[in-house]
């Protein structure tokens, strides 16, 4: 609805003038104030910490300085940069794997499950009625040295009793597995939405014209569902870049992620200035990712505005 089409009420007084000028725009004010308070202000503070205009270090004077930026930024100059690179690789791997695993689930829900689809959807989401923390800890029970998997191997005589598979936990494997498990259901949702809303007449037309199932999938279904796939990929990629809970609970000393480094600087070995530099860097990376992938999500919004 355009601004000029708003009904002309409250024509007198401050509220009336505000209304005349903004229509119902003032309704967003509480949201803007909330965002300013809980998001923009902390971001500004983090920015100030990153250039040493604020500090938590006792006895360190606050003065503009790019010291920590200069220490961090040259690629390969310090272990934090290496940790960033390895974390991004894991994040990308998990995102791709989650999308690949979620697509068949979404496809089944959209085209095969029919009346059972909502029951199945509920079942897929059921684990998320418990806390994320508990779900990660549950994986510890499964993967630990005397956990479910190793105990089963012992019982089946596949390994000597007490000789567990050591890389099952406190490793990159366990971190990636837990992240994968966490995100697959979320990833399935946007793909499912796109597939469900797909014009099935196109599929029928393709088959009428002689295309086989595989050809129909690769020429019609997959291209039409790509926006959902990309949305799903972004849904995993962005939050996982800052992940620190899973590595903290099931990761080993070599499988900490960049988020753990930031967390360490803000809690265990407090140097908020360096932590802020890493946090600002991560925010910048996430913004770039949003800009890159956002264009695939918003194109038709611009189109629909243009034709409105």
């Amino acid at each position: 609805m355009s601004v000029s089409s708003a009904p002309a009420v409250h024509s007198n007084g401050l509220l009336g003038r505000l209304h005349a000028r903004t229509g119902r725009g003032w309704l967003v004010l509480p949201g803007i104030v909330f965002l300013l308070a809980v998001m923009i202000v902390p971001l500004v503070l983090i920015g100030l910490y990153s250039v040493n205009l604020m500090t938590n270090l006792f006895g360190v004077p606050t003065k503009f300085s790019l010291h920590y930026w200069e220490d961090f930024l040259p690629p390969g100059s310090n272990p934090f940069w290496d940790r960033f690179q390895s974390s991004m690789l894991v994040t990308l791997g998990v995102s791709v794997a989650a999308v690949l695993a979620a697509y068949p689930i979404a496809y089944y829900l959209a085209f095969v499950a029919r009346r059972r689809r909502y029951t199945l959807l509920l079942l897929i989401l059921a684990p998320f009625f418990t806390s994320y923390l508990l779900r990660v800890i549950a994986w510890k029970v499964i993967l630990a040295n005397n956990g479910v998997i190793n105990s089963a191997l012992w019982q089946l005589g596949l390994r000597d009793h007490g000789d567990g598979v050591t890389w099952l936990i406190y490793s990159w494997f366990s971190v990636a597995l837990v992240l994968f498990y966490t995100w697959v259901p979320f990833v399935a949702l946007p793909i499912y939405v796109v597939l469900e809303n797909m014009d099935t007449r196109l599929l029928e037309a393709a088959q009428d014209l002689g295309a086989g199932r595989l050809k129909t999938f690769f020429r019609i279904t997959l291209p039409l569902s790509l926006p959902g796939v990309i949305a799903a990929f972004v849904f995993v990629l962005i939050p996982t870049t800052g992940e620190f809970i899973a590595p903290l609970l099931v990761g080993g000393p070599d499988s900490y992620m960049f988020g753990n480094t930031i967390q360490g600087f803000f809690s265990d070995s407090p140097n908020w200035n360096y932590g802020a530099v890493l946090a600002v860097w991560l925010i910048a990376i996430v913004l770039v990712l949003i800009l890159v992938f956002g264009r695939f999500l918003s194109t038709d919004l611009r189109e629909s505005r243009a034709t409105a």
Partner: protein
Amino acid sequence: MQPMDRRKFLYSAAAVGGGLLLGGCGSDSGTSAGGETEKVSHPPISQEPGTMNILEWQGYEAHGTEAQTYGMLAGKSYTDKFGTDGLKYTYIVNDTQAVNKARQVQFDLLHPCIENLQDYVNGQLVQPWDTSLIPSFKNLNPVLTKKGQVDGQQYFIPWDWGYASILYRTDKVDPEDATGWELFWNEKYKGRIAMWDGAQSNFEVAALYLGFPEMDNMTSDQVEQAKEALIKQKPLNKFYWKSEYSDMQPAFKSGDIWISYSWQDQYVYQSGFGLPVEFMEPSQGKLGWTCGFMLGASTKNYRHAHAYVESFINHKACVDMVNLFYYGNADATIKPSDVKDKSLAKKLNIGDPQALSGSNVNLQSWMPNENEVALAWEEVHAA
């Protein structure tokens, strides 16, 4: 390729957001801090709010509180009189983090270790105690109470003390390898070792391993060498443990790890569980520590805080604590006869007023370059 339209995108986003909200339930909550001004006089206890925020280690909550699951008697005389509703605990996980937390939140009491005494006093985070309000103070070991003074004022009331060393499985570790802190660097036990995720302690261990004369006063060059040693040691760890009870204890019990940085309570716990374990006497000496109570600079519960501390340092509570954790206690009136397990009391020097002064003990103390060490520890983490 067809883009996703706004309706579909919002539908997906709402579904994902709903899931996140559901999944987010039960996450860790923060701590509130209120702005208060320093007092100049202290009203009677009945006029104090009685709601205290206490910076504490997990497991040391007062008797009767929901969080106190060990049945520890300490705190009983306070909670019997004032109840438990007014007590709020904010947890600390290591000494460096404790100092930082004390700078961030409003607190009435905290239970730090003595090596950071100077940080708290210099930062004006604490105020001296009025020991006349704590009847059991007179029972405390003067060697330890003296260490808690700055400019003649009692800022720190010692309570618990103990040793840190290597806890190891005697059925898995060759006795010839269990000689000192170098066991952490023994490649033979790769993947079965867990050091604590504590900056200062790990650099102290590295300093002892490298033979530096002052583990808490290293030069920058020595910090660098210690950092390199810890980076070299890092791949041998299964993990760095953060919580003694939820990380290290179950992993040691399950056999995930055989060698761990530990305090003596875990030696008692794991051997009580039937595991063949030993608490090492390293050739370079054990680490020694003492922790106690400090009073928040701007507390509005001056008298409540004193009553709380009295409920912890009275003789009955101290004896109970010793028999529960087999830590030492600053209460000098504790006799070996008070300790249930006499052999443990002897092995851990409980009841010996000079227990922390021996040549085989390296008492942890203030690190002047703690910021440098903390940064170096994060570099070890990230390496």
